[in-house]
Structure formats: structure tokens, C-alpha cells
């Protein structure tokens, strides 16, 4: 039984077949990437996992549990964290507060204890802050700790979003184009962090990416898609050399020469 599995998933938006009988599985502890030209349906897979959209067909199996009918917040509570292609941070809050929100699924207090701010709630808050502080250190965010998100540069915001997902202490982390909009330097750092997340924190990563060099560096296995269908999947090296993949990217050669 695999750790995470998409079984024959399909979804249609009006006439568009955004996903058509897609199958893949992610093994515990690996980095699995999804590549494909614009509009291939990559983000749609994430949105279906998060239950923002209902699948027309198929199912997602996570830790042997069918998660394709649960309510959206349950997905997070089962241990799946994510980042968004267009950054969905709480823009008017500070970096720390965003990280603390990542701790929400660890909440053990109830409203009445919170209203009285009992010793238990205080202890829980201190734990949450310790965890947030760990993440700030891990991702080098000390300089931005108390700043409001909307005043931060794009690359830093993307990092904070990863931090917020890590604060959830997930088992599976979904990253939607983590390197897009980042500078070369930031991308470099990112590939170290992702390796650390995988190796030190033991978190499995499912990632959508366009940057081929980046994928070569950190991805164990890769799946290529086009127009909602899987072209091929396998080890990253195999997939990136597959003739159909090269064809799908025709006219987008710069995707491969990009550094």
C-alpha cells in the first residue's frame, strides 16, 4: 500500500477536461514532482486534494484512507499541508502570526479555557511560539519576524508560506511552483531547504515545478502531464528525456535551458 495515491482522478470544468483518469502514487519520504505546460492541470490536482473542487471520478488515498469526500479543513488535519501558486498568506498579519496559524491543527484547548487564558492555554501558546521560532531559524526569517506580510518582497513571502506549512508539522507537503518568482540565490537556498525538509524532518513532498534544473537537483520521481493527461512518469532523469515530454514543451524550450 502506498503512502499517497491518486486513483483514476478526473474533473471537468464545463467543456474543459482539466484532469482525465490521472494515476500516480507518492512513496513515503520522497520528493515527487509534477511537470507540464501551462494549463496542464497541475494546480487542479492540488485543489482537488484540498477539496476545493469535487472530483468527477476517482479518489485520493492517503495513509490507506479515502480522502476524496472529506471536508476541506479535514485534509489539513489529516497531515497534508500546502503552498499556493499565487501565495495565500494572511497578508495583514505578521510573519509570526502566519506561522502560529500553521499550528492551528495542534489546538487542544477549548473556547472557554481560551477566554480565561488558563495555564493550559498559556502553555500551549508558549509551545506554539517555540515551534514558530524554530521555523524562523530554520528558514532564516529572523529579520522579518514581526513584519506585516504585504510589506515583504515576493521571495520572502514564498518562504514564509513554506514556513507556515511546516508549522503544521505535516506528513505530506504540497508545493505549487515554489521557485517561481524567486531570485537565483533564493532558488538555490530553496533546494537546500527542500532537501532538509525531506531528510531531516522526514516530510514527503509533492511538488509542481517549471524549473527543470531545480527538479533535476531535488526530485526523486517525476510525472509529466499535458492537457489533463499523464504523458509519462518515472525517475526524474527518465522523464525529462522522454520524447513525448520534449514534444509537449515544444516552443517552450527555454524551460529546459533556464537555470
Amino acid at each position, binding site marked *: 500500500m502506498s503512502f499517497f495515491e491518486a486513483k483514476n482522478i478526473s474533473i471537468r470544468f464545463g467543456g474543459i477536461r482539466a484532469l482525465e483518469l490521472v494515476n500516480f502514487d507518492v512513496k513515503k519520504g520522497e520528493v515527487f514532482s509534477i511537470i507540464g505546460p501551462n494549463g496542464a492541470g497541475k494546480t487542479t490536482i492540488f485543489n482537488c486534494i484540498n477539496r476545493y473542487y469535487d472530483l468527477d471520478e476517482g479518489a485520493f488515498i492517503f495513509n490507506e484512507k479515502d480522502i476524496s469526500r472529506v471536508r476541506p479543513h*479535514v485534509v489539513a488535519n489529516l497531515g497534508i499541508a500546502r503552498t499556493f501558486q499565487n501565495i*495565500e498568506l494572511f497578508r495583514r498579519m505578521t510573519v*509570526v502570526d502566519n506561522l502560529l496559524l500553521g499550528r*492551528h491543527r495542534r489546538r487542544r484547548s477549548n473556547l472557554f479555557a*481560551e477566554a480565561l487564558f488558563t495555564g493550559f*492555554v*498559556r502553555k500551549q501558546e508558549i509551545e506554539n511560539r517555540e515551534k514558530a521560532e524554530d521555523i524562523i531559524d530554520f528558514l532564516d526569517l529572523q529579520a522579518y519576524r514581526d513584519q506585516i506580510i504585504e510589506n515583504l518582497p515576493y521571495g520572502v513571502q514564498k518562504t514564509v508560506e513554506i514556513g507556515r506549512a511546516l508549522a*503544521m508539522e505535516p506528513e505530506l507537503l504540497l508545493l505549487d511552483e515554489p521557485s517561481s518568482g524567486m531570485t537565483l540565490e533564493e532558488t538555490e537556498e530553496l533546494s537546500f531547504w527542500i532537501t532538509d525538509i525531506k531528510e531531516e524532518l522526514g516530510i514527503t513532498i509533492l511538488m509542481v515545478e517549471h524549473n527543470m534544473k531545480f527538479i533535476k537537483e531535488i526530485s526523486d520521481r517525476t510525472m509529466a502531464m499535458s492537457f489533463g493527461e499523464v504523458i509519462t512518469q518515472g525517475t526524474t532523469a527518465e522523464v525529462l528525456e522522454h520524447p513525448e515530454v520534449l514534444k509537449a514543451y515544444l516552443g517552450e524550450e527555454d524551460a529546459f535551458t533556464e537555470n
Partner: protein
Amino acid sequence: MRFVMKKKYYEDIRLFKYRSTFFWYLALVTGCLTIPIALDDYFISILTFICIYAVGALGLMLLAGFTGQVSMGHAAFFAIGSYTAAIITTKGGPLLLAIPAAGILAGLMGIIIGLPVLRLSGLYLSIATIALAFIVEEILVRWESLTRGNLGIYVESPSIGPLEFSSGISLYYLSFVVLIIVILLAKNILRSPTGRAMIAIRDSEVAAQAMGISLPKFKTTAFAISAFFTGIAGALYTYKISFINPESFTLLLSIEFLAMIIIGGLGSVHGAIFGAIFFVVLPNAIILTKDYLPKFVRDQTGLEAALFGLMIILFILFEPMGLYGRWLKIKYYFETFPLYKKDTFKREKSYQKVERQ
């Protein structure tokens, strides 16, 4: 400016970040407790109303200002609190039962009504809550065996044991203590996971769900807390004016509460208090200064309502952060006195403007 070093995490979760802040608030509370002794009934009455409306405004602030769910029907919860307190007191029930009961009943109604209504958002939610307020008003008129319909209910002064709240000042102290308790409860909730979840829902529902926050659960919770506070305000109101009938709880009251939190500054506890002060003081200020106004202005009917409307428009246009935002700027100006830069808050402002388009 002070720089806060992170030595202990506990520093972050304290109610007062700096020792000096604590002493300022202590001084304020002491002032509120002692100065009224020297004031006449008229001013004590003004202070009492400020406390009462501040409790209600704080209730609506948690829902509209912190959770982003704009209710235009809060008069309903205020009414439920008022009638609960009135009925319990006329039946001889103790005050210490009546006030919490008023809050709890309003809170329960908040849950019952909140569950279906909170599936709606934005304008639809507002309209559904207006409908709710009309229904409650209608029930108050029709359920004569309980509410005496349009005749209304007279309430004698309540008491706790031998302590009778008959004089203006004792009722002021009661309202003030309730206000302090309610502020502390709100502050505690806001620095806990529930409060953060509420603010998260306001800022991005999509991201909130990705954090594991259940939208129905926390929207309903916010509705319940909000209704609870507003119900308590309603109970205090009953004791203050000692006569209530359905006409005290119209749509206008709901709108006045909204006006309070907008003028005070959405999304801050201070805002609710400032808004209540403004709301109570403005009409009184108009009355006091009426004699000095030119005759043609003085004789206009609806002067207060017009001024109030004008203030709301001015605030939305020029100070979206409300009175509290203005206060922050003044405070910042003095704290950084020689270094103050004119455009410090510019960014914030332009963002707020864009957001409303």
C-alpha cells in the same frame, strides 16, 4: 521607539507588552472608578451608556471586525438579552443569574441562527441578518404572554443580595465592571487559537481551510461569542432605562452598532470602545452646543442623524482605520517626535483604499 528583545516567549503572549502600558491602563481604570464620584447624574448617565454600548459594539466587532462577517441584525441579540434580563428580574430572579442568562440565551440564538445564515457571505449575509432582526422584533410584539407586546416591560432596580443598583452611580459601576470583564474575555480569545482562526477567516478563507480551520465551526463560534456579548449589553441597557418595548430594538440600532465599529476602527478592541464613546458623546455635544449654532441649523430636525451619517462617510473616506487609527498616529507622532516622517502610514492607507474597490 522601544525595541523588544525576545528573551522569553511568554513576553509575546502577555496582555500588556510593556510595563508602562499596564500602568497607563491601571491609571485609566482607577480614573474611571473614582472620578464619577464627583460628577452629576447627567455625566454619570453618559458614562453608563458608553459602557453599555461599548460591550455591544465589542460583540459586533468580534464578528464584523475580526471575522469579517458583517451582521446588520445585532439589534436582535441586544433585544434577546434585554428581554431575558427584564423577564428574569420581574419574576424575582437574581441579577447574577439575569446578566449571564441574557448573554447565554443570545449566544444560543446566535448558534441556532448562525448555522444556516453563515453559509452566506458578504451582502447576502447582511440581508439575512436584517431579516433575522425583523423576525425577532415581530416575535417580541406578538408573544404577548411573555413580552407584553407593545406595552413593554417595566423593570425595578436589580440587586445582588443586599446590594441594590438603584442609583445612577451604582449602575455605572456595574456596567463598567461588566465592560472590563468583557474586554478581558475578548482579549484572551483574540490571543488564542480561536481568535487567530477568526482573523484568518477574515483575511483568506482558502488559506484558513488549508490550515485546518473549519469555516462553519469558527464562523458559528464567532457568531455565538458576538451574540453573547451583545446580549449582555442588552441586559445592562434594560437596567439602565428600566422600561423596554419592541420599539427600542429596530434596524436603526443595528446600524448604529455598525457605525460605532466603523467610526471606532474595524479590527481593534480599542475601536469598539472609541466608537461607543463617539456615539454617546456626539448627540450630547450637539445638544450642549445647540444654543451657539445659527438658528437655521439649530431648527433642523434630524440634525444628529445627519451629522452621524456625515461622520461615517468622512471616516470611510479619510480614515478607514477609524478613531483608533487616528489615535495610533498621534501616539506614534509623539513617541518618535523629532523623527516623524509624514508618509509613515501611507502604504497602509493606499492598501485599504484599493481593497474597498
